[in-house]
């Protein structure tokens, strides 16, 4: 019950500790203490989606979670998701399709899109639009973002199908 507390959490796979003011939101902690400037602050009232990160596997607004609440949690930012390669295909698709201009919405958009694709392997364009409907982009008009997410879904489905074919072939071959 202090205005400042010590916390420890997992940040992009690394164990970290910090002393934080209770009033500080998680976005500020990640930016100011850990230099994770890929966490972008666009409104600090939960509407624009630019600060969307992943906490314990779920997309959340970094501006609407207090830093102290990250104690014991697993926090992932765009920097960690990039280094792990988990969303490399999605990032490639965004780049290839020019689904970003100024890049300010992009980290939050990617985290949101990644969660959508994890839950809905082949979302319709409408479902994509609804899922990223809480992430504001002033530059693109959204069309290219929808294209990039849809293209990633198709690529993943094709890759999964190929893997399945390969898997179904392998036992037979092994049996020879």
């Amino acid at each position, binding site marked *: *019950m*202090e*205005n400042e507390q010590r916390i420890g959490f997992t940040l992009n796979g690394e164990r970290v500790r910090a002393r934080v*003011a209770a009033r500080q939101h998680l976005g500020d902690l990640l930016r100011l203490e850990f230099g994770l400037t890929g966490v972008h602050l666009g409104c600090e009232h939960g509407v624009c989606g630019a600060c969307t990160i992943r906490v314990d596997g779920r997309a959340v607004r970094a501006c609407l979670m*207090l830093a102290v609440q990250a104690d014991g949690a697993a926090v992932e930012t765009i920097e960690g998701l990039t280094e792990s390669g988990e969303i490399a295909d999605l990032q490639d698709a965004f780049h290839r399709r020019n689904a970003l201009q100024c890049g300010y919405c992009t980290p939050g958009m990617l985290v*949101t899109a990644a969660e959508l694709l994890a839950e809905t392997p082949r979302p319709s364009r409408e479902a994509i639009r609804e899922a990223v409907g*809480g992430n504001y982009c002033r530059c693109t008009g959204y069309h290219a973002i929808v294209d990039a997410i849809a293209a990633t879904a198709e690529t993943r489905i094709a890759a999964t199908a190929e893997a399945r074919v390969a898997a179904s072939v392998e036992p037979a071959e092994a049996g020879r």
Partner: protein
Amino acid sequence: MKAPDVAYARPRTLDEALALLAEHGEAAQPLAGGQSLVTSLNMRLAAPGLLVDLNGLPELTGIAEAGGVIRIGAMTRHRDLAASPLVAERLPLIAAAVPHIAHPAIRNRGTIGGSVALADPAAELPACCLALRASFVIRGLTGERRVAADDFFLGLFETAIGPGEILVAIEIPVPGADAVSGFDELARRHGDYALVGLAAQGRRDGVGLGDLRLVFFGVGDRPVLAGNAAAAVAAGGVKAAQDALAADIDPADDVAVRGATRRHLARVLLGRVLGRMTGEA
């Protein structure tokens, strides 16, 4: 836009949380999902002395059915409501409402208890709870009490939860096999607070609807039970209900829209939701 200085505690038990609230009185503010409270803090619209974080309390989570009642822990997140087979099967009204609440990242964090305790008059879940005749389980240092939904929402951002008390769970009587529900809202953009919304719960009664509860949100200072409209459905059908609605709601003009517009939209929504419910019946 940075929050004012504040103290923070993360109790491990409900009793510990209640003790903190008792000790700090009005300065203490329970923190649930934080999707509204942290916004208020960042905007300096709220300046509590102590935040009592309820996120570490296992007593407040979980969805379970027992004795004809579904008990939803207050800290159950919107996302978990959406993912619950029990909710999907037994409480289709709530299942229909949840996708309208803000956006995925907000639903991942926001809680049903936080939503009903805040009692935003434009929010979906308070209206659903009222339509479903929920009972609110409220714990204080001296014990636990239950408040019926009809007595829970007292005004703008005002509920029956008293000082030093914590909302523990929402208990909803399982609707019968003949139950029918309807939900819809009119929002300018996906996930926005609705200009007008309607949560309706009833049961099939021959070709009509019985035991109907029509709860509008976004039209008053709290979720509004439209008793006249519900009575008129039984007596005269949809058109009569739409006409009777004028006696149930009286939305005021505000920044976004005129009261007359909300009244008209409520009328349209009522027609559409009833049409779907009776179509199903």
